[in-house]
């Protein structure tokens, strides 16, 4: 049984009278890579800033390493590093100067690793941070974060602005370093395929509430696709037998989604006359979409010419 590095209990947070997070309970096992996904404005960044101790909860408890965080603790934050979309990098600094600042700040700073990462990202220490592109700043932030050797690394949309080649390199470097250091990672991303590739656990937030969390494989089993081949096609009799399922038809193939175990749906397909029935795992993106839709989170799509 792995112990939890971060524990969040009954956490509430309000911004200007508007509830941003409601009764969040969350435990992050030590050494895990935890994906945090959710709709826009669901409270992902807020939750991470609460864990860092930057934001203060209205009620509830955050413990890191079993110790309740005081309102502000530089020593506790030595063990955590946050890479956010709103970069803290000083615009007027050169890369080497900002690295000097971080080196003075983080006790476990790994200078040799930083040099290697700079080379890997093709960054020059003399470059001015203000002149770097968004993607290059992101790479610099990741190099700094990995060199600070934190116990908890919070990556908030770390692949935004990166091209495909660099993104692949960055994700691989993150994997290499965190497995070497046994770092616990919270990985926030809208790119669910990245989360599926990188993370062993995942949590889904929506409108300030946690809808689901757990190992990625378990979350993916929340829904299962059941496909059946009906030789007679979508006849009124078959449709009538499957009216509770409302499957999607593609020729003589019908597909339905089961929440939880698919056994009941498989049985329904069979009794409706399916020649064969297949149970197919869904990818994480589709599971997340269905979970959000189940919460009423839908947007109309428009076809060309309707706008």
């Amino acid at each position: 049984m792995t112990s939890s590095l971060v524990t969040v209990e009954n956490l509430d947070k309000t911004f200007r009278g508007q509830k941003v997070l409601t009764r969040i309970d969350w435990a992050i096992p030590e050494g895990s890579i935890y994906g945090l996904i959710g709709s826009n404005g669901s409270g992902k960044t807020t939750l991470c800033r609460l864990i860092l101790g930057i934001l203060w909860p209205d009620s509830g408890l955050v413990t890191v390493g079993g110790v309740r965080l005081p309102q502000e603790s530089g020593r506790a934050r030595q063990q955590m590093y946050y890479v956010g979309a709103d970069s803290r990098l000083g615009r007027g600094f050169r890369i080497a100067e900002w690295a000097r600042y971080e080196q003075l700040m983080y006790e476990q700073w790994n200078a040799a690793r930083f040099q290697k990462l700079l080379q890997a990202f093709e960054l020059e220490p003399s470059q001015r941070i203000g002149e770097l592109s968004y993607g290059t700043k992101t790479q610099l932030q990741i190099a700094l974060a990995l060199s600070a050797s934190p116990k908890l690394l919070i990556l908030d949309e770390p692949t935004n602005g990166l091209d495909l080649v660099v993104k692949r390199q960055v994700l691989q470097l993150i994997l290499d370093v965190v497995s070497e250091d046994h770092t616990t990672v919270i990985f926030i991303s809208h790119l669910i395929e990245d989360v599926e590739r990188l993370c062993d656990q995942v949590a889904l937030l929506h409108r300030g509430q946690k809808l689901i969390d757990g190992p990625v494989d378990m979350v993916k089993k929340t829904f299962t696709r059941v496909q059946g081949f009906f030789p007679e096609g979508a006849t009124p009799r078959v449709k009538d037998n499957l009216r509770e399922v409302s499957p999607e038809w593609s020729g003589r193939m019908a597909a339905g989604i089961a929440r939880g175990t698919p056994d009941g749906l498989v049985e329904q397909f069979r009794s409706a006359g399916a020649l064969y029935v297949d149970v197919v795992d869904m990818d994480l993106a589709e599971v997340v979409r269905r979970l959000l839709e189940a919460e009423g989170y839908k947007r109309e799509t428009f076809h060309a010419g309707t706008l």
Partner: protein
Amino acid sequence: MKRSMQGRFNFNGWILPAVRYREWRINRSWYILAAAMLVAPWFVQLYNDFKVGPAHILIIQLMGGYGNTTIAASTVIAGGLGLVVFWYDFSQGRLAYVLEGAVERRHVWWTKAFYVSATIIGAYLLTGIAMEGAWLAVGQSGVSITIVDAMAYLILVHLVIAATAMMVGSAIGNVIYAAIGVVVMVAWPTLLQSVIEMVIGGSAYRLEVGVQNLMAALSPASVISNHLHLYVQSTPKVVAFSRFDQWLIVLWFGVWLGAMGWLGQRLFQKILWERFFDAFYFPVLWNGVYAGLALVTAWVYEAVNGSNLVGVNRLLLLLGIAAPMFFVWRWIVRQIGRRALWKMRSGVRS
């Protein structure tokens, strides 16, 4: 080696090397500029005095008069420095996001206080050394106490103003509101004195004088403008004052400095992070804006209508107009805010 590492990460200390390094790198232009602006007029004046006549007399005159003539400008510089070190750091240094790192707000506050103090002390120390050097160069023997006194007083005055500005800068994010806040803070007893005088309206002379003296003693602005000559012994007025008065002022300024330092740090630690993007870090301070607007409205209304009332009646009339106007202005400003026309900075991501 171990000891130096412990020093670097001693979170119980007041200043962390990392924070100090960053502060100097972000705000060094302001510190150097402020020091140069404080020092330069003295050096120019000293140079001119040396050109025209008996230098030792001119140095005495310089010490006697120059502090008085430049203090208005130099206190503005000190106050501006106290504000700009926060404002520039939030706008250009991304201070709100820097707080996501392994730093604590009190380290940030005291590091700024350290550099602001060093700038002021350094500037007047340099000026004092130059003056003493000139004093000795023109044949005077020994150290001039006049110069030491004047420089010590100027250091104290500028520290008081800068600390007040830093305290206000710890609570207000908009630099214009903050500048108004500093003026109110250093002059509030004087403002209160005006109100009391208006109420008394010449009816009680002794009370009026008593109020004047008390408020003048409490207000740093009054003390600065009225008592600079206490420290400049060459002026005839010094005869009227004793060393005891000087020490009282030193004591009062010391208390003020301590209060501003404590309050500034406490306020800075109490701000909700999400409020760092607002004009006022504490929303309750908006009431000051509504009150100010209401008082101005009441004053304009009264002036336009040519009221003949005096004393308490005049005050009651002003308050009677200002009270409803407070809520009117509150409603107007909030409506503007709701329409997002009043956004000072960007919002917070969730």
